[in-house]
């Protein structure tokens, strides 16, 4: 008996210690402002979704406290005590219609509290707002057709295994894995997939919408403040699904216009000898079959990301590799290392990716370290 009671005491102590450690962890380990958190909304859609979520949290918390409390109380109150008669026969009551119907009505009322804001937010997120100020002609100074000026900035999001293409049809530019949008403006995203189903998820700006092949999905987003945002594909899309990330830069109007101006330019001609060697290697080593570089007349491939301004991107390999230094700007040294690593070891960094593949399977492209350095040097001029 002694042993049992000691064991019991030890068990209780261990349990309490574990519980307090757990609670401590909860306090210290839970930040809601992490990089990809949906609990830190920075745009009206994410905010509406967050508010709705909080409504459901409060309603269910209320049910949790009342029903859970009732359960605990009942279990405690009607437990069999050690001195109770084993054969005690409780009252064999088997129901009370009034109580049952009352509780049903109460639960329906609680659901109505959730249903009303749900429908409101639903309509809000599904309808492109008629925001005059967001129309392209109202704020973008560059050349636009009349039709484009009257519409909202549109971005065609194309999902590939396992990277993203962002095309700005009104502005005539295409970029990859980094969605750049102006702050405070409504942006319409046309979501298309080239192969399997993907899902566009930028938690701080908006919840996800799927990119389904054969289906024309769209969503609208708006970002309230400039910043660097983190997003990810949220639908299982094959072996490297975990590496299908993307980043979003929200810029002020001026910065955005400058960015667009910059992106519209073709890639500069390779003037330096080492860079020209890299350009040649880029063609010789079959990179051109899949990648487009505007300004390089050989690089016209469409299977891989557009590399026209690859060096202006803050990340590499669909967001896995960060090119930024501590100050948040691109660190050229880091970028060089990343590019080298990626070209040299892409199968290791992102297993299953389609670099060095053609329709027949894995291609063997002999690349010496020196070759890679030259290609990197060439790519780094594309900023």
């Amino acid at each position, binding site marked *: 008996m002694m042993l049992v009671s000691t064991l019991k005491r030890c068990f209780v102590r261990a349990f309490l210690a574990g519980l307090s450690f757990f609670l401590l962890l909860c306090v210290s380990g839970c930040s809601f402002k992490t990089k990809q958190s949906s609990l830190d909304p920075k745009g009206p859609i994410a905010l509406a979704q967050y508010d709705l979520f909080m409504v459901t949290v409060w309603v269910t918390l209320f049910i949790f406290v009342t029903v859970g409390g009732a359960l605990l109380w009942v279990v405690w109150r009607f437990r069999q005590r050690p001195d109770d008669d084993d054969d005690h026969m409780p009252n064999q009551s088997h129901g009370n219609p009034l109580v049952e119907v009352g509780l049903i009505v109460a639960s329906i009322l609680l659901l109505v509290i959730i249903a009303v804001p749900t429908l409101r937010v639903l309509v809000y997120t599904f309808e492109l707002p008629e925001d005059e100020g967001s129309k392209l002609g109202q704020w973008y100074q560059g050349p636009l057709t009349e039709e484009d000026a009257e519409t909202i900035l549109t971005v065609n999001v194309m999902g590939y295994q396992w990277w993203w293409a962002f095309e700005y049809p009104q502005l005539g530019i295409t970029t990859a894995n980094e969605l750049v949008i102006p702050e405070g403006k409504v942006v319409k995203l046309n979501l*298309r997939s*080239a192969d399997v189903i993907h899902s566009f998820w930028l938690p701080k700006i908006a919840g996800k919408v799927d990119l389904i*092949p*054969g*289906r*024309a*999905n769209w969503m609208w987003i708006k970002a309230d403040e400039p910043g660097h945002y983190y997003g990810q594909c949220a639908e299982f899309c094959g072996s490297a699904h975990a590496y299908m990330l993307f980043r979003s830069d929200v810029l002020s109007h001026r910065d955005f216009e400058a960015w667009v101006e910059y992106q519209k330019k073709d890639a500069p001609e390779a003037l330096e000898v080492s860079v020209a060697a890299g350009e040649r290697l880029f063609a010789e080593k079959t990179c051109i079959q899949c990648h487009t570089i505007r300004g390089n007349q050989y690089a016209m491939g469409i299977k891989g990301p557009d590399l026209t301004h690859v060096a202006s991107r803050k990340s590499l390999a669909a967001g896995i590799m960060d090119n930024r230094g501590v100050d948040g700007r691109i660190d050229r040294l880091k970028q060089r290392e990343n590019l080298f690593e990626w070209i040299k070891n892409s199968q290791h960094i992102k297993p299953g990716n389609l670099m060095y593949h053609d329709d027949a399977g894995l291609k063997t492209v002999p690349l010496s370290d020196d070759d890679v350095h030259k290609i990197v040097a060439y790519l780094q001029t594309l900023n």
Partner: protein
Amino acid sequence: MNAHALSLESLIKEEAKRYHAFINLAFILAILTSTEIVIIFLPFASWLIVTSLVVLSLVKFFCVILWFMHLIYDRILLFLLFMSGLLIAVGTVIALMFLFSPNDLDRSLFSFNTLSMFFNSFCFVA
């Protein structure tokens, strides 16, 4: 066994009555089917034709399950069981029909070489 034997007599009588019902039904089904085939070539509005086709096939459908499949003679439970499956199926069909719309299609991925396909299948058969 005795109860069974007794009911056998009445059962046989019952069956004789059903015989005429079956013959009549066969005629009705034949007539309804010919009506359907005629209707589709009549110059009426398409909604009218579709509605009458649906009604006619529903009539045929229920005639078969009620008489040929004996539901009208059998216990109501069987009818309810079958109808529950049928209703869930019909409900699902209708809901799915509403959920799909040509407006949602993204046609950019459809790449279809009509000519080659035509020739391929032709050669295959030949």
